[in-house]
């Protein structure tokens, strides 16, 4: 399984720079917001955490559809389905690799975007922390969408449509926790812990659903 993680990481670095495109998209989305709402720094700092989160959510969807599709196209998926390793575990490892390759760069890029949005240090730190905890959930739930659409040649858009409604709770608690860290009366921990719980829940549900879908995708 370590071999699979290592291979997927190597691929994410070498193949077409998927991670780079995700981060570029993230930066671009956040950068166009001020053109839409105006350069009012107070407004930007107020909506900043939300914009950064939405940008990360959209960027996280970008590479999802390729998660299993590349494996299917070159036949590797067949061999993975045949092994004695539980398929759920294989999917979980692929999710982790996908997150390290595509999700983690978003988390690392987020402080820079926080500066663009005139957020203060606490807000930037809180947004980064919630992204760190929340983006894996997006990958896990996205894996289900990716597995369901694995046989569709142009499934990318469909994956986003299927995944976004399910990602609403992650967005809500991620943004709530980020705001709670900045605004005084609201406590930070409850939404943050719920976000952790959602991520752990999806870490189970996502690979289970994705493995089931992959087994059913080919006959």
């Amino acid at each position, binding site marked *: 399984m370590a071999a699979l993680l290592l*291979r997927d990481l*190597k691929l994410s670095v*070498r193949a077409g720079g998927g991670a780079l495109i995700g981060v570029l998209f993230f930066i671009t989305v956040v950068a166009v917001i001020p053109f839409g709402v105006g350069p009012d720094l107070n407004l930007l700092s107020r909506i900043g955490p939300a914009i950064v989160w939405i940008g990360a959510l959209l960027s996280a969807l970008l590479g999802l559809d390729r998660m299993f599709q590349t494996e299917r196209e*070159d*036949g590797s998926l*067949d*061999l993975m*389905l045949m*092994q004695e390793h539980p398929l759920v575990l294989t999917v979980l490892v692929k999710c982790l690799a996908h997150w390290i390759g595509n999700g983690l760069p978003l988390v690392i890029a987020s402080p820079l975007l926080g500066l663009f949005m005139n957020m203060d240090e606490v807000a930037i730190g809180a947004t980064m922390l919630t992204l760190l905890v929340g983006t894996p959930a997006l990958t896990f739930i996205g894996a289900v969408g990716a597995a369901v659409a694995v046989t569709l040649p142009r499934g990318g858009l469909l994956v986003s449509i299927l995944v976004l409604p399910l990602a609403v709770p992650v967005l809500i608690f991620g943004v709530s926790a980020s705001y709670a860290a900045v605004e005084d009366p609201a406590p930070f921990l409850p939404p943050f812990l719920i976000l952790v719980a959602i991520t752990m829940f999806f870490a189970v549900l996502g690979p289970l659903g994705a493995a089931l879908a992959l087994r059913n995708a*080919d006959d």
Partner: protein
Amino acid sequence: MRLIAENLSARRGEDLIFQGVSFALSGGESLVLTGKNGSGKSTLLRVVAGLLRPESGTVTWQADTGDKGMRAAEACHYLGHRNAMKAELSVHENLTFWQQFFGHSPQGKSLSVDEAADAVGLGDITHLPFGYLSAGQQRRMAFAKLLVSFRPVWILDEPTAALDVSAERVFTGLIESHLRNGGILIAATHQPLGLKNAQELKMAGFAGIAEEVW
């Protein structure tokens, strides 16, 4: 050590592609599927490999040692039309990954990555990215994947497509030594593989119309 298929049938849409296919292979035996394109050779192989659910029938694997609950698929190597290798990774990285992912089987001897590449006659170029290789070389390297981790059953779908005669001879040699070591082979092929004592199963395609669901 036996691979037993009983009364297999599979369908595509309403067509039954084949029906009532049964065979039993023990160590050292081989089965060659022949027939025209679309006659269901690949489908049968995928059913045996556990990648397609048969409409009826079962594939079972009886190992010599205990371990009763093993799925037949876990005893198999499957080489399909696609090579299951990543163009971006070097040949060595590809083979090392599959060796680790397949794991070490206690029953038989596995070759190291370099030995396997030597065995298919391409020992010098394992450092190159897989995508740089020609179609024939890629096929040979995909074959080397079968050698890096031992599996008693080899399921090969058109293994010699895109290969010249000398490479074919290499493949035949490797398959024969696998059979000598007590392995089992099931292959679908256009060209005769030149195997002695191979059972042959002629696939006709379209075995009839499946029982109406509706």
